[in-house]
C-alpha cells in the first residue's frame, strides 16, 4: 500500500523539482501516446522539444518562440498575482480580446495619420484600459454582490468573443477590404504597428512588456507590502483580515492588474503578429496562460521559463503536425498532460510517500 504523509514544512527541493519531473513524465507518457498512434516517439519528442531551437529550420522557429511566449508570460504573470491570493480570474482570454479591440480601435481611429510617437502609446494605454475594465466586471460583481469570479470571468469570455465577431464584421471592418470580415491590417499602418525590434528574433514590444511585468511582479511579491498581503490572503484569508488587508481592494487590484496585462497582450498581438481584428483573432492564450502560471509555480521567474517551454510545445507541436502528421488533438493532449503531471507531482511538495502497509508500529 502507498500512503501519503504530510510534511511538517513544504519541501523546497520538490517545489523546484516538480516542474522538471513533470516535464520528464510528460515526455514519457506523451511518447507512449505517440507510439500508440504509430509515430516514432523519439522523433516526435525531438521534433517538439529539440528541432525548434537547434534543428534545421531553427532560424524560423526561434523567432516564433518569443512571439508565442510573450503574451503567455504577460498574461500568466498577472493571473499569478490573483491566484496567489485565491482570486481566480479564468477569463483572461476575454480581457485579451477586449484589450485588442480597444487598442486596435484607437489605432484605426487615427488612420491614416502619421504620428507614431502619439498613436502607438495611446493604443497601448487603450489596450490596458480595455482589459482592466473587462476584468472589473467580475471584480465589482464579486465585491458588491459576492458572485463567483470564476464563473463570471469565464462566461465573459464568450461575451467578448461575440463582441469580437461583431467588431470584425461591423464597426472595425476594413472599408477597403472588399466586404471581407476583419479590420485593416495594423502592420501595414506604420504609426500603429507593433514591429519586430530586432529582425529575426521575434522580439516585439509585447515581449519587452512581458519582461518588465516579470521584474515588477517579482519585486511586488518579494518586497512590496501589497505583494505580502497578496501572499498572506492566499495562505490564510482570516490571518490577512487580522493583519488589516482590505479584501475588496485586494480583489479589485488583482483582477485589475491581470485584466490590464491580458489587455496589453491582446493589443500587442493585434498590432503585431496577428495584425488585424478578425473573427478568429483569439487562439486561447488566455487559457493556456493559466497552465503557464501554475507550471511556473506562480513565481514570476518560473512563469518566464514556463512560458518559453509552453511556447516551445506549441511550435514543436505544430511542426510535429506538419512533418509527422500527428493529429492536433494529440498535441493538445500532450500539453494537457503537462498540467496534469505538474499538479500530480505537486503532492510531493507537501507530502511524503511511504510504501508498504501502515506500520503496525
Amino acid at each position, binding site marked *: 500500500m502507498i500512503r501519503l504523509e504530510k510534511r511538517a514544512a*513544504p519541501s523546497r527541493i520538490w517545489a523546484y523539482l516538480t516542474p522538471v519531473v513533470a516535464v520528464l513524465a510528460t515526455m514519457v507518457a506523451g511518447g507512449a501516446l505517440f507510439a500508440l498512434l504509430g509515430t516514432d516517439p523519439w522523433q516526435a519528442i525531438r521534433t517538439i522539444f529539440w528541432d525548434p531551437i537547434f534543428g534545421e529550420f531553427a532560424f524560423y522557429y526561434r523567432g516564433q518562440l518569443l512571439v508565442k511566449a510573450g503574451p503567455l508570460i504577460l498574461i500568466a504573470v498577472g493571473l499569478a498575482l490573483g491566484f496567489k491570493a485565491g482570486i481566480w480570474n479564468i477569463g483572461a482570454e476575454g480581457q485579451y480580446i477586449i484589450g485588442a479591440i480597444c487598442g486596435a480601435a484607437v489605432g484605426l481611429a487615427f488612420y491614416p495619420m502619421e504620428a507614431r510617437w502619439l498613436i502607438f502609446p495611446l493604443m497601448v494605454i487603450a489596450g490596458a484600459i480595455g482589459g482592466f475594465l473587462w476584468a472589473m466586471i467580475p471584480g465589482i460583481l464579486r465585491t458588491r454582490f459576492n458572485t463567483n469570479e470564476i464563473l463570471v470571468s469565464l462566461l465573459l469570455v464568450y461575451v467578448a468573443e461575440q463582441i469580437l465577431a461583431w467588431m470584425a464584421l461591423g464597426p472595425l471592418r476594413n472599408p477597403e477590404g472588399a466586404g471581407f470580415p476583419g479590420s485593416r491590417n495594423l502592420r501595414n499602418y506604420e504609426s500603429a504597428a507593433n514591429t519586430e525590434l530586432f529582425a529575426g528574433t521575434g522580439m516585439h514590444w509585447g515581449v519587452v512588456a512581458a519582461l518588465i511585468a516579470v521584474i515588477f511582479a517579482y519585486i511586488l511579491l518579494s*518586497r512590496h507590502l501589497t505583494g505580502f498581503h497578496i501572499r498572506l490572503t492566499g495562505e490564510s484569508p482570516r490571518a490577512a483580515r487580522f493583519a488589516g488587508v*482590505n479584501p475588496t481592494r485586494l480583489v479589485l487590484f488583482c483582477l485589475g492588474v491581470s485584466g490590464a496585462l491580458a489587455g496589453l497582450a491582446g493589443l500587442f498581438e493585434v498590432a503585431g503578429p496577428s495584425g488585424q481584428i478578425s473573427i478568429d483573432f483569439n487562439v486561447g492564450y488566455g487559457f493556456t496562460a493559466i497552465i503557464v502560471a501554475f507550471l511556473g509555480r506562480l513565481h514570476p521567474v518560473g512563469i518566464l521559463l514556463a512560458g518559453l517551454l509552453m511556447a516551445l510545445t506549441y511550435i514543436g507541436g505544430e511542426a510535429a503536425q506538419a512533418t509527422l502528421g500527428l493529429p492536433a488533438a494529440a498535441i493538445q493532449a500532450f500539453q494537457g498532460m503537462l498540467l496534469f503531471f505538474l499538479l500530480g507531482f505537486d503532492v510531493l511538495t507537501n507530502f511524503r510517500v511511504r510504501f508498504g502497509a501502515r506500520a503496525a*508500529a
Partner: protein
Amino acid sequence: MTTPLLQVEGLTKAYPGVIANDDVGFSIGKGTVHALLGENGAGKSTLVKMVYGLVRSDQGEMRFDGEVFSPASPHEARSTGIAMVFQHFSLFDALDVAENVALGMEDPPPMRTLARQIQDVSESYGLPLNPDRLVGDLSAGERQRVEIIRCLLQDPKLLIMDEPTSVLTPQEVEILFQTLRKLQSEGTSILYISHKLEEIRTLCDAATILRLGKVVGSADPKVTSARDLAAMMVGEELKVPAARDHSLGDVALRVDGLSVASPGAFGTSLKEISLELRKGEVLGVGGVAGNGQDELLGVLSGEIKSPAAAILLDEKPVGQLGPVERRALGLLAAPEERLGHAAAPDMSLSENAALSGWLRKGMVNRNIVDWKKARNFASEVISTFDVRTPGTEVPARALSGGNLQKFVVGREILQSPEVLVVNQPTWGVDASAAAAIRQALLDLAAAGAAVLVISQDLDELMEISTTFAALNEGRLSKVRPAQGLTIDEIGMMMGGAHGMEVAS
C-alpha cells in the same frame, strides 16, 4: 483483589522526533473513577487514543477485563465496551439532537425509538436534553450532554472523558459530576483526563500522573494535596506571577452600548456591551466558549466594524477603523486561533512577525518591506519569550502549539501597545510558559498599558485580573473588582447552569 477492568503495561508510542508515551502502565478498577493527570503535551491524549483504538501502540500490552486487548479501530473499542467523550465535539450544528446521536451509533434504531431512549437516559442520569432541538442552538454544556448520551446508549463498561469541564460553567460542572457519580455507582468505570486539580480531588478515586510521556507517579487524590499533585505534574516549582499593586490611570478604552451581529451563521452576536478599561488595569473576561469571545476580539481588533462611537480609544471614536489604523493608535490584539488567524501556517516566523508588526516596528518604508527588520523582530520575540524553534525562517505550522502561542502573544506585547486585547493567551501552553506569558501581561499593565484578557481558564483570570466580567450569550456582565469574588458569584455572572436543574 479482583481483576482490574483495564490494565495497561509498558505501552510505548513514538512519533517522529518525540516519544509520546514511554513505557506507560496503570490499571483501572471496576466502578472507579481514575484520573489521568498531566500538562498539555504530557501524552494523555496519545494514551487514551491507544485505548480507544485511534492509534496503535509500538510496544506494550493492554488487558480489558482480563482479556488481551488491542483495538484496531474505535469501532472495535466500542464493541468491547469503551466509550469516549472528546474534548472537541463532533456534532453537526444543522441537525437535531437525535439525528446527531444516530450518526455516532453503530446501528441506530428508528428515530422515534431513539428519541424515546434519549429521553429515558437523559432523565435517569439527570442530563436534561430535548431530542428534537437543533444542536446549533445548544450551549456547550448541552452539546457535551449529547456526546455523553450518545456514549451511554452503548452501555459502556469504561467511559473516557477528555477534559470535559473546560467548556462548562461551575454549575454545569456540578451537574456533570453528579452524573458521573451515578454512573460509577452502577459499576461503570470512568477514565477522567484533566489538568484541573481541584476537580480531580473531588471526583476521582485514583490518579496516574504523566509527564513528558512517562508515568511519574500515582496518587490517591482524595488525600494528596493539590500542591503536591501539581508538583508531580509540572516537575518544577511553579512561578506564581508577582502581585500587582500599581494605581490605575485614565480610561484607555471605552466601549459604549456596542451591539454587533456575528459575521458567522452560528456565531454569537454581541449585545449592548459596555466597559471601561483603565491604564494599568487587567480586565479578565470569563465565560464559556462560544458566548461571543471571538466576536469581542474581532470588534476590538478592527476585523469587525462597529458604529464609530461604540468604541473609544483615548476618547477617540475608532469603531469604523480597520486593524492597521487601530494598531497605529496603539490598540493591538492577539486572537485565540493561532494557526490561520493569528499566524499564517505556511509563512515563516519573520513573515508572521511582519503580519501584525510591520507598522509599529517600522518595517515598511514607502510600501517596501524591510525583511531584515522583520527577521530581527522575529528573533527578538523568539529570544524574549523563549520560543523553541530552529530559526526565524521555519513556517509557523512547524512549531508546537505552545511555542507558536508564545510567539503570537509575544509579537503583540513587544510592540508596546497602549491597549492589548488577548483571547485565550495560554491555551495549550505548558505551565511554566503560561506563567511567563501571564507575567508578561502583568508587566505590560504595570508599565501603564491597559490589558483585556479573554479566557476560559478561571484560575488564570483570578490570578492576573484587576477586574472581572463574564460573557454570556453575547452580553457582558457588570465589571467587578476581581478580588473577593467567590466561585458562585462568578458562576452566576457566567450565566449559571443555563436553566438546568441538578440531577436528583
